[in-house]
């Protein structure tokens, strides 16, 4: 539904084809990540519906800002933070090396993921992935991921 929303508003916001493809790809990666790990927080949001996952896409003069929020278990915060920090501190060559190692290692996460999502996001956005954790309840935090996507030349 969100993907259709983007398609429907493409004309209104005059999103160029290259930019549209970037946004679509990022949206899919971000939303698939939330969906893939949803079983870890399904019970939590039954009890605390105010912490349902959220997704925002806003437009300003510099470009688009994509934000997702979802609950994560406190014990998963460290691994998640380390994964994103590694991506953010890697230069393009290092990122390419990590990508190549990850894509060829034949390993999958316990949820069937390829472990490539954040690498893919960083490659597309060409910007650091901003993240933060906010207190929630019952051993959960809210993980917020923000991606800035600059305007591309038409």
């Amino acid at each position, binding site marked *: 539904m969100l993907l259709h929303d983007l398609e429907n508003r493409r004309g209104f916001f005059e999103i160029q084809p290259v930019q549209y493809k970037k946004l679509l790809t990022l949206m899919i990666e971000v939303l698939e990540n939330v969906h893939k790990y949803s079983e870890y927080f399904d019970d939590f949001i039954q009890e605390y519906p105010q912490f349902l996952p959220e997704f925002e896409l806003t437009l300003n003069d510099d470009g688009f800002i994509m934000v997702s929020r979802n609950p994560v278990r406190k014990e998963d915060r460290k691994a998640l933070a380390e994964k994103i920090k590694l991506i953010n501190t890697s230069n393009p060559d290092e990122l390419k090396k990590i990508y190549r190692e990850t*894509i060829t290692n034949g390993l999958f996460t316990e949820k069937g*993921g390829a472990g*490539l999502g954040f690498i893919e996001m960083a490659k597309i956005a060409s910007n650091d992935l901003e993240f933060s954790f906010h207190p929630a309840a019952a051993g959960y935090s809210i993980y917020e991921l923000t991606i800035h996507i600059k305007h591309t030349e038409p």
Partner: protein
Amino acid sequence: MNSLIIPATDFTPKVNFIIETGQLEISGVSRPEDVAGFYEEPLDWLSRFEESIVKSGNRYEFQDMHLIFQLSYFNSASSKFIIMMLRHIRNLISHGINIKIDWYYEEGDDKMMEDGEDLAEAVELEFNYIEMED
């Protein structure tokens, strides 16, 4: 061994592996809900095909094979399975089968071309990059 034909859906690509001509084509969108489940069949087909080539030599009538990727989008999970398929292709090449690999991408979609380059580099295969006009 029979050809493998899987029609495209909104989330999964068309797969046409034609045994009679040696043409293998994957096209469309690849973001299956169950990515492992979707790629099981094409991988199994390639595995059996490779095995038959290794065991009995190239007993098929074609001399060359042609692998065509014409994907408009694939998610990161799919890329690992594409790599697995390409490993079979690399093995076939090492058994003396000529395989031409064409990677199509839409006009201006540099990201898709670079994705092809990354995949080719990861498995040390050579792709031909073909930009499709609108």
